[in-house]
């Protein structure tokens, strides 16, 4: 994974640009951008009024939670270049920690619980990221795999984490912020949005700032990064910690806003792979890619299922139909990655650039 190097363009300091009024500087393009951003934000906010429970509970809420986990995985794998298959473990730590804080300290505000889940996951992530100081690649996978199995075992084995409930599962507390009740499907969505939107903005800034650049330097060539003064060990641990923080918060959302009740097995290795695939399909080293990947992984099987039932249902055995679904989905993933190894984010970027050239050409 290498990002295109953009040459530094030094601003011409000898002749300052002519002063123009704010209005004039906000040229057409900027206005369009601001309008788009405002419209997009407004649309996201009022979405629960436009769509029904099905889209909210079954599509948007899991989409947001998995996208957030995808961002976390992207920090570790896409930006810092460290292979990890432990994301589900960190989600699990986040969910259980948030639950336990709420259980043992009654009246903890919901957002504080979620943040505590994130911080606990960050600690776990940094701990299991320690081997990355010494080992790389597939050897590191083994270490994160250990995190995956250890955490699942721990939460199953030690009943305290699930409040000693007979079924060994954790259950979401009543969802509300201050006095606003969020127990409706729309409330679940707003809660997820309220958590995911600021964290996404932070992720963009982080990736573009000093830390993100240090991560990319480590990813592209660790020796060179060390030579130019990047503290590689610190950068890697930070990637694990921050990435796991995102996963932890995502786990909290998954448990509280989406499912309501979760068993430790809900965060198994399959979930880790799912998040890794989200990042690979969406685009390594791209925040937007995490969302695109999650959309692809969550929505596409649903769409295929409905399409296949619509086209072939009734004439084909349901079991066979499901297997056809899986074959088509797998085939599409392979085709996509063969066509564009950098993922959906790059694919859409190229399509956008082509669209712009096309308007120029036809003009």
């Amino acid at each position, binding site marked *: 994974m290498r990002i295109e190097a953009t040459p530094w363009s030094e601003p011409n300091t000898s002749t300052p640009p002519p002063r123009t009024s704010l209005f004039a500087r906000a040229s057409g393009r900027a206005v369009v951008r601001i309008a788009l951003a405002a419209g997009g934000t407004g649309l996201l906010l009022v979405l629960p009024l436009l*769509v*029904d429970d*099905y*889209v909210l*509970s*079954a*599509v948007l809420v*899991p989409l947001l939670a998995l996208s957030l986990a995808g961002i976390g995985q992207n920090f570790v794998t896409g930006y810092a270049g460290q292979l990890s298959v432990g994301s589900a473990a960190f989600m699990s730590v986040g969910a259980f920690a948030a639950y336990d804080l709420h259980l043992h300290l009654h009246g903890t505000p919901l957002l504080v619980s979620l943040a505590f889940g994130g911080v606990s996951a960050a600690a776990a992530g940094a701990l299991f990221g320690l081997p990355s100081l010494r080992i790389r690649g597939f050897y590191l996978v083994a270490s994160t795999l250990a995190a995956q199995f250890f955490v699942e*075992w721990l939460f*199953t*084995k030690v*009943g305290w984490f*699930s*409040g000693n*409930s*007979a*079924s*060994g*599962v954790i*259950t*979401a507390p*009543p969802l509300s912020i201050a006095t606003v009740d969020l*127990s409706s499907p729309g409330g679940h969505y707003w809660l997820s949005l309220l958590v995911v939107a600021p964290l996404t903005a932070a992720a963009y800034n982080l990736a573009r700032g000093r830390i993100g650049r240090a991560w990319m330097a480590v990813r592209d060539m660790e020796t060179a990064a060390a030579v130019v003064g990047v503290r590689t060990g610190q950068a890697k641990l930070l990637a694990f910690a921050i990435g796991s923080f995102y996963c932890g918060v995502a786990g909290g959302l998954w448990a509280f806003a*989406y*499912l*309501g*009740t*979760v*068993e*430790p*097995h*809900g965060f198994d290795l399959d979930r880790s792979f799912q998040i890794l695939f989200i990042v690979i399909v969406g685009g390594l080293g791209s925040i937007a890619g995490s969302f695109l990947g999650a959309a*692809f992984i*969550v*929505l*596409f*099987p*649903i*769409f*295929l*299922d*409905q399409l296949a*039932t*619509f086209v072939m249902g*009734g*004439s084909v*055995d*349901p*079991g066979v139909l*499901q297997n056809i679904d899986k074959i088509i989905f797998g085939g*599409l993933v392979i*085709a996509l990655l063969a*066509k564009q190894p950098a993922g*959906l984010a790059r*694919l*859409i970027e*190229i*399509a956008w*650039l*082509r669209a712009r050239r096309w308007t120029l050409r036809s003009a």
Partner: protein
Amino acid sequence: MLRTRAPGFVPFLAAALLTTACRSRSENASAAVLASPAPGTVSPGKESAGKEQYFPLQSYRVGPYAAGGSGFFGGFIDYMQLVNIRDGGVNGIKLTWSECETEYVVERGVECYERLKGGLNGAPAAAMNPLSVGIAYALIDKATTDKIPLITINHGRTDSTDGRVFPYVFPLSLNPYSEISAIVNYIGQRSGGLDHLRGKKIAVLYHGSPYGKETQPIVELLAQKYGFASTHLEVPHPGTEQESQWLQIKKLAPDWIILRGWGIMNPVALKNAAKIGYPVDHIIGNIWSNSEEDVIPAGAAATGFIAITTHPSGRQFPVLQDVDKYVLSAGKGNMTDPKRVGTGYYNLGINNGILNVEAVRVAQAKFGNKPLTGEQVRWGFEHIHIDDARLKELGAVGLLQPIELSCSDHEGGGAVRFEQWDGKEFKVISDWIKADRALLRPIIEASSTKYATEKGIAVRDCDAEARL
């Protein structure tokens, strides 16, 4: 310069996202088109609207648990088909259904729930039957809010037996606590009375999951009560590695082993028992270790294995003969492999069908012969009373236990029969053996009350509801 061609994939993807997102307000209409009924369903015409009761099926026919899913849902569908063909529905109200594949994956199950809960072509949803612990957990809150009964036959949260706290959840016929209590009662019977259990050694080999661990406190309680020594041995998921556990068993030499397995863990356990020479007829499989799929892969090592059942295998029951006569011979059976009709999972599906249909019938007696809401069907479930006479009418004597549910008791049965694998099929070797439900009830209530406090749930007053 970019030389990549515009991928033809992009518009496809966009269309995909758009279509899924656009299934907004017109949920019912589009779901009706998209979720077309399973093969063999009487295709509901427009004129029949208002005359049908809908069963949303969160089935799983692919993935690691496909054997269970296809058998259970096959049996369930065949029974509904039987009611439609033989009786013309329930009091003239035809049953209709559609399937949504969950692969036993929780989020797929939730998606299916949301997709199907609105009904089909105007026919309201009667009850949800996911047959998956994980999906059932995730649906407890949702189904309660939406007022749709959530049926977790033979599985699910034990404390959901307490209908005062879980008004819409029904762990029908057998919860995990009753299961273990009935097994201990059987071991007592085989030992010549419960007082002969003193000094015996019983080992529990369990699946390393919340499901596997759930009955530990009950085993301990019974061990104290009857004076037997209990040992718990955990097998990590999926259960293909059990050598060290069986080494421990060899040292321990328990009198009985209770196998609390799931999937591949079961045949592997039986093979390991044969390897160390443990008598297989002293291993008792629980409700998820009792299917043909669990024993056949173990080959000869499984011969003599005992398992509990709430739904004995076999085709000799009159209801199955009716299925054969009206459904299978008419070519309307759901099973791809007709040989599986009458096997464990299939008969569980039949039992589940009987109970669901009975709930609809009971509720119709109160609310009228029309399609009912989930809330009304819930009332039906809470007033199911199947005694021996009713079992005979249903043609299910010996297949289903007598069962009576109420507002506070959502389990209703709590008895099992024991069957033994003879190398070809399971032979029933005991009558219905009851759990000590009076002993278990306070533990269940303690747990459900704790849950109610934690979640801020108002406990129902069942006496007041009965007076209404």
